[in-house]
């Protein structure tokens, strides 16, 4: 008797080389296109900082690299406006608005996503509809209210009417809806109430979304010009209004203007760099799986 080992069925390798080549061409092409688009986005920002670092006599130079480097524009900006105070004011304003909108958005989104109540959809549509109301419609009533409250020409006056954002509610509701309902029910079974579940289960799982939205709201608030200009008529309390100081009837002082604008962009850029991964995660994923 002879013993013959049972063999496994024959395996025919596919022609992987052709597939690999095609995929490499596609990857290179994709990188070239995306690189071009990236360059298109970066150039204006680069030019802003390059101009701010040119010597005053080279301010209109088209040389791509500013040389010799000069901080004269920053010094002039510092002498013209109170940069540290403006940065602080703008940061406080943007942070308070972003935080307020995050908290109200979180509470409203939680209510809409985790609970069932009468007129839920109607109420949500009303929330969404407020997003469609143009700023000009609410501008005058808000201004009148601030006048009565005596908060005109203060940062508080800029912040209070912006504490709620329909965008925050919509986005957080959408993220919250993607959290498995069983997770909230498990917390209920484990003895948690709605409030405790929100802070111990929902928020920790919503960090990427909260970070992404927080940055978005912060940038929106940071870039806000019209409303602060209306409320802070007698003071240039925020950076965006201070930029106007360099635009006068005699012409525009490009150096200090670019230096101040560069400083205005810096916190947002830093914030994005630090939270980059969470922001991408927050926008790519709609929540938990």
């Amino acid at each position: 008797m002879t013993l013959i080992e049972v063999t496994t069925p024959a395996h025919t390798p596919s022609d992987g080389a052709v597939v690999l080549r095609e995929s490499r061409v596609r990857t290179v092409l994709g990188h070239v296109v995306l690189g071009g688009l990236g360059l298109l986005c970066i150039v204006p920002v680069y030019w802003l900082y390059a101009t701010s670092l040119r010597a005053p006599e080279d301010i209109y130079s088209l040389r791509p690299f500013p040389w010799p480097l000069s901080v004269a524009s920053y010094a002039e900006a510092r002498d013209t406006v109170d940069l540290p105070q403006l940065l602080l004011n703008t940061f406080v304003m943007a942070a308070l608005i972003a935080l307020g909108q995050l908290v109200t958005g979180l509470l409203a989104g939680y209510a809409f996503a985790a609970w069932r109540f009468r007129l839920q959809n109607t109420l949500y549509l009303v929330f969404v509809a407020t997003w469609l109301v143009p700023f000009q419609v609410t501008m005058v009533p808000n201004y009148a209210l601030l006048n009565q409250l005596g908060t005109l020409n203060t940062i508080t006056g800029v912040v209070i009417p912006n504490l709620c954002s329909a965008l925050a509610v919509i986005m957080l509701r959408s993220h919250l809806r993607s959290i498995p309902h069983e997770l909230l029910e498990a917390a209920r079974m484990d003895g948690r109430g709605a409030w405790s579940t929100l802070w111990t289960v929902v928020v920790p799982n919503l960090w990427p979304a909260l970070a992404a939205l927080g940055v978005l709201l912060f940038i929106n608030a940071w870039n806000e010009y019209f409303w602060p200009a209306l409320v802070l008529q007698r003071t240039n309390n925020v950076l965006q209004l201070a930029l106007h100081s360099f635009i006068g009837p005699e012409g525009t002082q490009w150096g200090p203007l670019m230096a101040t604008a560069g400083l205005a962009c810096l916190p947002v850029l830093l914030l994005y760099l630090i939270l980059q991964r969470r922001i991408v995660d927050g926008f790519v994923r709609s929540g938990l799986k």
Partner: protein
Amino acid sequence: MSRIQIEGLTRRFGSGNHAVNAVDGISLDVADGEFLVLLGPSGCGKSTLLRMIAGLTPPTGGRILLDGRDITAAEPRERNLAMVFQSYALYPHLTVAKNIGFPLRTRRRKDVDAKVTEVAKALGLEQLLDRRPRALSGGQRQRVALGRALVRDPGAFLLDEPLSNLDATLRTATRAELTDLHRRLRSTFVYVTHDQIEAMTMATRIAVLNGGRLEQVGTPEEVYDAPASTFVAGFIGSPAIGLLPAEVRGADGELRAVGDGVDMPLGPGHDASGREVLVGARPEHLRIGTGAVGPEWRGTVRLVENLGGEEVAHVTVGGGRVALRGPRPLGLAVGDAVRLTCDPDRIHLFCATSGRRLVRTPEPRRAAVAV
């Protein structure tokens, strides 16, 4: 240890003409330490019933009593019940240790670490305590979910299809572990599944649900050997029991069920003559007939399936089908004409209109009585 009494529990969804009773007036008494399995197809209301016991879904009517205390309107945290969800519902941001200790931290217990270690040891999770759920396999997640329920020493465990996400091998092993756990804890378990094997292997009693109503409650043996309705007979057992229409006819004081391809003696009797019935036998109780007496099905083999150790032959009898299961080879081929028979005691008889089981009473004058 808890006794759960359910009295006329109803849950209605929707309103007006679109209202649907997901659970329709169910009454059930789950004894202390019992392993009750709620078994039924998707949409039969078993999960809704479990969620009402847990307090996650409010009932539309009826009462739930836990050790005699009315908990119908109580919050889940006031019920002293633990639940294991189908998806396990582990907190993704917490480690295994923190997931297990979560219910204890809610109650501000001081012995959290000791209890977590004890439960982790019992479930073989000591090496995984620092991992997060995403770094665990399905079986490990399932054990963590079980650990989170165990750590509280609850009055009763509610389990909603906890094995449905596991592969076949792991499911078999976990079934045995759950049975062993129930034996050790002697706690009340209410377990929802649509898997008859899980129900048969783990339950001390099975409650079969259909369309929001209870079809039958009984031990696994009772439910399998004496199904109370055609639904239970068809739902439990694989391949399903083949039920064929027949008419009860009497001659010389003897009753027979006669139909297209079906002829079987039912014993002495008179008053059931002319009654429309459904007759059937479990596939493993059927055998290829040789003798001329006894119950018989005559048909043609339509399909023979090889299950490894066994074969299943699907036989067309009249307008219906029956299945025959036996050791391989059965010796049948597609197209063969076959005569099947079985022990008369293994025949199941159901009313053709109500679908309820008919039992043959020993009195010669009362041939058939509906259950």
